[in-house]
């Protein structure tokens, strides 16, 4: 990318901030980035105003790392703005990639969320009737808040995305590797998932795999898991079989089942459905009642299987009339 310094922006949409911390987690490498690049926008670390971005020429930025999903009109506005100003836009982390944890809100409607968050909740003053409104007038002044959408979108639902860097958050070494590739200028094909493997996590996980047969599901705290054997075979719901590798299998290595943050394998449309068909295929029973009893050991399977990918799934959201 020539002799001039890279012009980059980092932004957070509907997310938890963990992705920004992941960038900081690259430690001293971030200083190398700072030496190579001008960071033009990074709300968590650098002072900057939206107006500064608006004033940039289209395509003035070389790269934007956008983390977080699109939950409200502000998220969408900035996504569109940065898309215009930036030659490369990377969906950074699970939320931008697939909707992420905020995407689970798609299991409820906006009204249900408002009701729970502002109206009927033990930590709310009883009788409260105030909910956020896009437009309010106070003392004759009109105030505006971003509009809260009916559902959560992933980044590429609202703008064109060049690359996807999965993870909740992405592993620091992968962030670093991707940044190095971008700096080198030798780019992968547009639309690629970068900073991740092409196979399932089980490939990367060093636990020993036997033929899978599940008679009972257990929560991780219910047993002392065998340190060597595959967690799923021990009845602990591990999303590893339906999840891309690339994270270094950090969760299963520390006896925590994979939760699926790296998303589905290439070519797979619906990660949760794949996990569902895989796990139910290895339930070791032919008796309907027993199968029901075994499945009862999986409370909130939807929440588990689609923990990071509900807005990217075939279902996308629940609709209530």
């Amino acid at each position, binding site marked *: 990318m020539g002799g001039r310094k890279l012009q980059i922006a980092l932004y957070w949409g509907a997310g938890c901030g963990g992705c920004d911390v992941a960038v900081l987690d690259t430690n001293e490498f971030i200083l190398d980035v700072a030496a190579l690049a001008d960071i033009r926008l990074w709300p968590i670390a650098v002072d900057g105003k939206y107006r500064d971005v608006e004033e940039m020429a289209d395509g003035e930025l070389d790269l934007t790392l956008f983390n977080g999903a699109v939950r409200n009109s502000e998220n969408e506005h900035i996504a569109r703005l940065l898309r215009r100003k930036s030659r490369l836009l990377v969906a950074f982390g699970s939320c931008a990639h697939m909707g992420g944890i905020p995407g689970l809100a798609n299991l409820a409607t906006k009204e249900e969320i408002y009701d729970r968050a502002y109206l009927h909740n033990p930590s709310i003053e009883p009788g409260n009737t105030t909910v956020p409104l896009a437009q309010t007038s106070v003392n004759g002044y009109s105030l505006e808040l971003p509009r809260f959408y009916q559902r959560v979108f992933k980044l590429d639902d609202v703008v064109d995305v060049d690359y996807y860097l999965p993870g909740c958050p992405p592993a620091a070494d992968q962030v670093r590797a991707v940044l190095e590739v971008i700096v080198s200028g030798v780019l992968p094909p547009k639309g690629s998932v970068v900073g991740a493997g092409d*196979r*399932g996590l089980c490939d990367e996980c060093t636990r020993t795999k036997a033929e*899978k047969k599940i008679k009972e599901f257990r929560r991780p705290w219910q047993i002392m898991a065998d340190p060597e054997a595959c967690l799923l075979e021990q009845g602990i719901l591990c999303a590893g*079989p339906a999840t891309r590798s690339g994270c270094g299998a950090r969760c299963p290595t520390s006896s925590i089942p994979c939760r699926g943050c790296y998303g589905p394998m*290439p*070519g797979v449309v619906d990660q949760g459905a794949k996990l569902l068909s*895989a796990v139910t*295929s290895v339930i070791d029973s032919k008796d309907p009642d027993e199968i029901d009893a075994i499945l009862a050991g999986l409370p909130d399977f939807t929440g588990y299987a689609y923990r990071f990918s509900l807005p990217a799934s075939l279902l996308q959201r629940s609709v209530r009339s």
Partner: protein
Amino acid sequence: MDQPRIGVYVCACGTNIAKVVDCDAVVRAAEGLPGVAVATTYKYMCSTPGQEMIVADIEEKKLDRVVVASCSPRMHELTFRKAVKKASMNQYYLQMANIREHCSWVHGDGVEATQKAIGLVRAAVKRVAFHEPLESRMVAMCPNTLVLGGGIAGLTAALELADAGYQVYLVEKADHLGGNLARVDLTAPHLDSARDLLRERIHRVMGHPHVEPFLGAEVQSLEGYVGNFTATVAVPGGNGAGPAAAEGDDGPTDGGGATRSPRTLEVGSVIVATGYREFDASRITHFGYGKLPNVITSFEFERMVREGRIETVEGRQPQYVAILHCVGSRSQEFHAYCSRVCCMTALKYAHELKSAVPGCYVSDVYIDMHAFGKGCEDFYRRSSEVKTLFLMYGKNDYPVIRKAEPGDDCGMLIEVSEQLSGELIEIPADLVILMVGMEAREDSAEVARLVGISQDKDGWFIESHPKLDPVATTTEGVFIAGTCAAPKDIPDSVAQARAAAARILGKIARGSIEVDAVFAEIDEEACSGCRICNELCPYSAIEYKADEKRSRVISALCKACGACVAACPSGAIRARHFTDEQIFAEIVGVLA
């Protein structure tokens, strides 16, 4: 992909389809679909002129895909594949739409059935565009055969193959050959000696250069696929020839406890001829079997006849003998089916009793007299002449047997609600013979799993087609013969054994076998080695390569059922001829 040129052929199936589905309307609808170059209807597409029409169109009209809308592909897919192949088109460029079984045979409303037929044709047209040319493969055929079971069926099959010059491994679980027939004396309806029928066969099997018998042996595993199976057989003491292998008197007994060292056998085909077991008469409490000592089973009576002593436990010649039919058969509570041989066997007993115990009274208590089979009706007529009292009882209205009072001149009394007279009749008996039915062996499920075949609700092994393919199974290379498939008599068991042998000889003669090109494949680049798929395959077609940490489909074993395809969370498994693209195209077509 270039838009292919598709020919659509709508079959009237005589009137089978045309009487409900408006075939011309289907043709008109097909003509309007993208890619359809020809659409036409004909009375019988499967007939020679029908097939020739397809061949001519492919050549003259330069078609590159064919859709036949007719019966189920189970019926004629192979027929039309052959036709297409004749015109030098890849045989997998064919798709069938089932407008008979799925339309005309199941719907009364012609308008709606026609709509549905059009939908199915649209789906087939959409799908066929995505078909890929596939080549079936030839694999070598190992000429050796494994026969399971040394009853009359297994013996017959083994000799048939061995006489043709091919190696047979005959594995018999018991320590002697002959099976259940070794427990029978004379056979109905011709009254030949069972011993004679068996002796010659057992003798020849034991000395045959091409038969290696294993007695007291069991098959532990069967792996591989048609033409290329590997079987492991546990043999007592590792010695196949065993002790003097005459037919036993006490029926099948499991091989002794000698140490077993497994043998590995390479075979191309397997014949399962594991036979049946008799119904346990003590399960019907009304008959007092096991409590009343002179109530015996047919097999126990056979033994008396063979020993030449027909007498009660007290050592007296019976004056009154009652023969009770359908014990365990033809009842809602036990087995709904008829065991087929017991009626004639009962008549045989009447003969044997009349000649062995002159002056004894025989009553024959039956539900219906099943005398089908060559010579059987005649045998029934002759038996009626030997002064047997026939009494008819109702299904599920069991006669009740009880001990007689001290003053009676008989040991037991049987209360029968007689159907023909409509009266409650009591008959005397010193000896009661229960005609126990046949049932699937206790280990049949294990055998089915071992060789990869299925069982029906009663436990009998299922044939590939009950009428047209009675000795083949859904697992290619595995055949069934004799009573393991359903109750039958000796002639039928023998016929099946020879039929199975003939099927195998045909395959051996061809030297190699064609393996269908439709199977699942695992993309090694995409497989994570998660092992989700490993245990799923009903045909054990998936193996896990521990060194490479990848799973693999043994294509010759795969039946393309799709179970693993759906389960693989990596999307690494693809079923040829059933790809996502093809299935989605079909769905789009139906819903359009």
